[in-house]
């Protein structure tokens, strides 16, 4: 299906990432955003509020993040594409209801413009420390898809992709951007509507009385209907069967039976290969591979250039989808390369996944950064250099001591100057 021309503000613009995401959401067919202002994501909400009424879409500013995500869940089941926009602290508040979304399989998108944390942290500056939270933040077992764009153009493109994935797999899709990308102004090309591919909702078309809201198709994803279409829906956040009825019978519980929650993880895990999108470059003869995502990728490019100038063979792997994690790819690379270098704007999150998937075959070097800024490319270049030289297999994540750390704790950094 193609996008509706009414929704697409075709043209070439100079805009920041947040604004691009707002345009992307509308172009993807989003008809409802329930949001709550939080720095640095607000511009996305403002943009949508401005452009939505001219395209028959609605923006409502709810009383808090819990309200906005709950309203998004409701709007999703009313039959429209929905999204909410937030940043770290708001994201933490949404955790319970993200679990509900996974359970009632409501397709929705969350745009998280990450900032420095924990807690209130550094609201106006960047961070990448919500990556594990996006995967594990709600209680119980579930799987999500997370995408990490690195430019305003990608915030437009991948917002559309996020909507498509959420409709296809009926699961929460997180756009894990960060303040740097959100507030970065660049050229953004919004293509004509006929060039934008839109995934329609998987509506059920059979006889009403035969409809089972949680009966999966071949790819483990069930078909949806709209609330108020006379299907007599029963949808619950409790563990439920295909009819949607809660599993309450004590006897039934003890028995060996497939739990429907199993499917919630399987529908992503078994389709992972179709979902994962990577960008690799210079892998053929690489000795060291830099694994990065989001804004760190753009910084890493400079670091890699510097290392290559010294004659080191460096591969560059960018995770466009961070979750589901590309286990196979990392394992495959691990058997070929000496080491992975992982720069991320946190003190170690995705690096543990890289460590896990490398199965002891390659060293793993973490270049941490607490947030409120990006890496120094020299740190990345030096870490690459070190990783090439290191002969021993080191049985832990090697934490690179960055220039910033040395400056703050050993150099002359004075607070309150």
């Amino acid at each position, binding site marked *: 299906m193609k996008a509706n021309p009414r929704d697409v503000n075709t043209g070439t613009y100079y805009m920041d990432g947040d604004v691009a995401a707002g345009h992307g959401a509308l172009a993807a067919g989003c008809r409802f955003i329930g*949001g*709550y*202002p*939080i*720095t640095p994501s*607000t511009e996305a*909400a*403002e943009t949508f*509020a*401005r452009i939505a*009424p001219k395209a028959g879409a609605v*923006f409502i*500013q709810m*009383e*808090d*993040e819990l309200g906005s995500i709950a309203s998004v869940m409701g709007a999703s089941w009313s039959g429209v594409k929905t999204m909410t926009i937030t940043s770290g*602290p708001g994201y933490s508040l949404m955790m319970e209801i993200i679990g509900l979304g996974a359970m009632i399989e409501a397709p929705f998108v969350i745009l998280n413009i990450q900032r420095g944390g924990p*807690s*209130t942290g550094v609201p106006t500056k960047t961070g990448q420390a919500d990556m594990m939270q996006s995967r594990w933040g709600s209680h119980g077992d579930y799987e999500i898809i997370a995408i990490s764009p690195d430019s305003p153009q990608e915030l437009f493109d991948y917002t559309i992709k996020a909507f498509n994935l959420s409709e296809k797999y009926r699961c929460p899709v997180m756009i894990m951007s960060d303040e740097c990308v959100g507030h970065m102004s660049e050229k953004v090309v919004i293509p004509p509507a006929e060039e934008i591919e839109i995934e329609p909702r998987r509506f059920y078309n059979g006889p009403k009385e035969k409809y089972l809201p949680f009966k999966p198709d071949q790819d483990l994803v069930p078909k949806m209907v709209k609330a108020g279409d006379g299907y007599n829906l029963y949808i619950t956040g409790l563990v439920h069967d295909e009819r949607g009825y809660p599993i309450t019978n004590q006897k039934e519980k003890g028995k060996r039976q497939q739990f429907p929650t199993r499917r919630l993880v399987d529908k992503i895990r078994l389709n992972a290969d179709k979902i994962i999108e990577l960008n690799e470059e210079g892998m053929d003869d690489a000795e060291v591979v830099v694994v990065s995502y989001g804004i760190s990728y753009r910084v890493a490019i400079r670091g890699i250039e510097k290392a290559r100038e010294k004659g080191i063979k460096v591969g560059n792997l960018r995770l466009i989808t961070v979750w589901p994690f590309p286990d196979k790819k990392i394992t495959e690379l691990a058997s070929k390369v000496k080491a992975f270098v992982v720069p991320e704007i946190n003190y170690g999150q995705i690096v543990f996944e890289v460590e896990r998937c490398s199965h002891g075959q390659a060293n793993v070097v973490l270049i941490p950064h607490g947030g409120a800024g990006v890496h120094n490319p020299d740190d990345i270049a030096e870490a690459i250099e070190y990783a090439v030289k290191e002969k021993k297999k080191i049985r832990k994540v090697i934490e690179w001591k960055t220039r910033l750390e040395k400056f703050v704790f050993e150099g002359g950094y004075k607070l309150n100057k």
Partner: protein
Amino acid sequence: MEPLRKTEKDIHPMDDLLRMDRIPHIWCPGCGIGTAVTAFAAGLAKAEIDLTKTCIVSGIGCTGRVAGYVKLDSFHTTHGRAIAFATGIQVANPDLKVIVFSGDGDLISIGGNHFIHAARRNINMLVICVNNFIYAMTGGQVAPTTPLATYATTSPFGCVEPPFNIPYLADSSGAVYVARWTALHVRRLTNSIAEALKKPGFSVIEVISPCAMYYSRINRLGDGLDMMKFYHDNTEIRHGEDTKNLDIGFQTKIIVGKFVDRERPTYMDSYNKWLSGTKKD
């Protein structure tokens, strides 16, 4: 930075009450929060309460930064949860007097639930709510206090939701002391704060404040001084007015005054009464 006050002559009576090492503050020219803080400091001095047993909690936002400038035990917490945080402090140590100083978005929007529940429980605290009709820290989004048809960045075509009448909400949830002043009414605000500080129970003082940077700019209302002039010409003091008549529209008359002053057992009173009852069993 050079110390602001160099000689003894320069010492200001507020120096003991404010963290002078953090001045200059972050508020914009024309903002009313500074005035509210001055009134608060003066109120503290006037109330003559034990300042070591007094603490202040703020949430997030422009007004949320107040805790950082007041020289009491001070907490800058998460968005909307200042009252909940303060409830913990008050109940764990009832000897303390807790002041919650925050904005309309923080206290009434995201913190609305804690606001009504703390009022219902009648937790012993003073809530000073600076109402500037907008989310200023994040850049001028519509707030639950934004008057109908008023512009804000997330209501680019005019606000479509009726605003809260904060004194009415506080009153109907059970607050024992409710007053409203503007940033112009410094002396009355000071007196009100001093009075409320001595009152046991949940007290609410709403302070209408100009936001020259966002609210006034987006709605073309001039600068801080223009807003002050507006307050001067368009406020009316009506003590004891029924709280349901206190709605504020876009640039309409604002009724100020002390509206509610009543007695109710505080949470700790009821708790202790209940506790002594169970001990007998």
